């Protein structure tokens, strides 16, 4: 093998290791090291009665990012409330899907009930009922709702 191919190979390998190493480090920093054991089976996605994707909480813990957007299929709230939380939140009302701020500007009634399409993890945590159905359905019994409970307190991880 030519010398520069070898250097490129080693460089790429080290970069991949460094990139993948961020996740366990973040998982330890957030206080949820077990998050790295989630293998994204998506069973929890079908367990939430209000349409939250609980796997998103695990991704938020893995990336140490409370602003990570979680998919929410039918989480209902008022348009004014959605706009107050996050004007960039994608929402849908009937067949119309756009960001909450834009929808309000387009003349849709602020009292109108909308479905959140995606929402930041720290905001979703406030809507989560903490019923624990996601944790019960998890095949490796990860306490997913602990993350939601933590985020709901102050919008961040840790104390």
């Amino acid at each position, binding site marked *: 093998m030519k010398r520069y191919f070898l250097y490129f190979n080693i460089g790429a390998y080290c970069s991949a290791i460094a990139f993948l190493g961020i996740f366990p480090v973040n998982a330890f920093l957030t206080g949820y*090291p*077990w998050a790295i054991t989630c293998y994204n089976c998506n069973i929890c996605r079908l367990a939430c*009665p209000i349409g939250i994707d609980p796997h998103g909480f695990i991704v938020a813990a893995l990336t140490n990012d409370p602003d990570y957007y979680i998919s929410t*299929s039918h989480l*209902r709230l*008022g348009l004014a409330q959605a706009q107050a939380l996050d004007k960039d939140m994608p929402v849908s009302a009937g067949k119309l899907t756009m960001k909450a701020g834009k929808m309000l500007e387009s003349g849709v009634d602020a*009292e109108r009930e909308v479905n959140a399409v995606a929402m930041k993890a720290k905001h979703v945590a406030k809507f989560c009922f903490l*019923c624990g159905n996601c944790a019960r359905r998890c095949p490796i019994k990860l306490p997913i709702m602990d993350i939601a409970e933590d985020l709901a307190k102050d919008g961040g991880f840790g104390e």
Partner: protein
Amino acid sequence: MSKTPIILFILSVLTGICYFGQTRPLLKTEGFYPVVRAAKDASYQFSTDTVEITLQQNASLERIAVFAYDREQRQVVVVKPLRDGKKITVRRGDFADYRVTLDKDTAASFEIFREIPGVRKGVDFFELLVEARAASRRYGLQDCLYPICTLCMDVCPVIKHGVIKMKRDEYGAFYPAIYLTGCPRCGKCFAVCKLGAIVSVRDAMKEKVPARPAAKMENK
């Protein structure tokens, strides 16, 4: 020397750290008796495309479960946000969130709905509510999300003695019937109930929460 045992050792150490590193928030509880919130009184206004529901008193949360019974006597539920703490609007095209199949008076199973365009159609809750009213079937509001949420029963240390039993009231709403004679006042049930269906007797007195009468232990 083979590297396999070293790698296996490192992996087992990492797994151990992950397992023991699970942070579980401590459950702080108060030693009070639990109180179960009373059924919600509400008025319903039916029109061609909407049903306006107005609660008699403010709800415990910003959202509440609205239910109606279908032809097979299954409880179909939608979780709706409240406006001004008292008003709910059910519109045509509001799809139900889950459905509970009953066996006599207990929940046998439940199904969480996901509408997949072109594959699976959701249950239009508005149509179901109108149909339930026309057919004199039961419909109403409830705080409790049983059987999806069973946290109060999961944490109760004396659940084997039948201290908490899930019941349905005359309106068809599920509620936790707590037999106070067997209750050890550990306070775990109201600490975990984030839906506000169970509150401590102190909070109930402070906030003047209308409560259901305490359940009496049945003879076995």
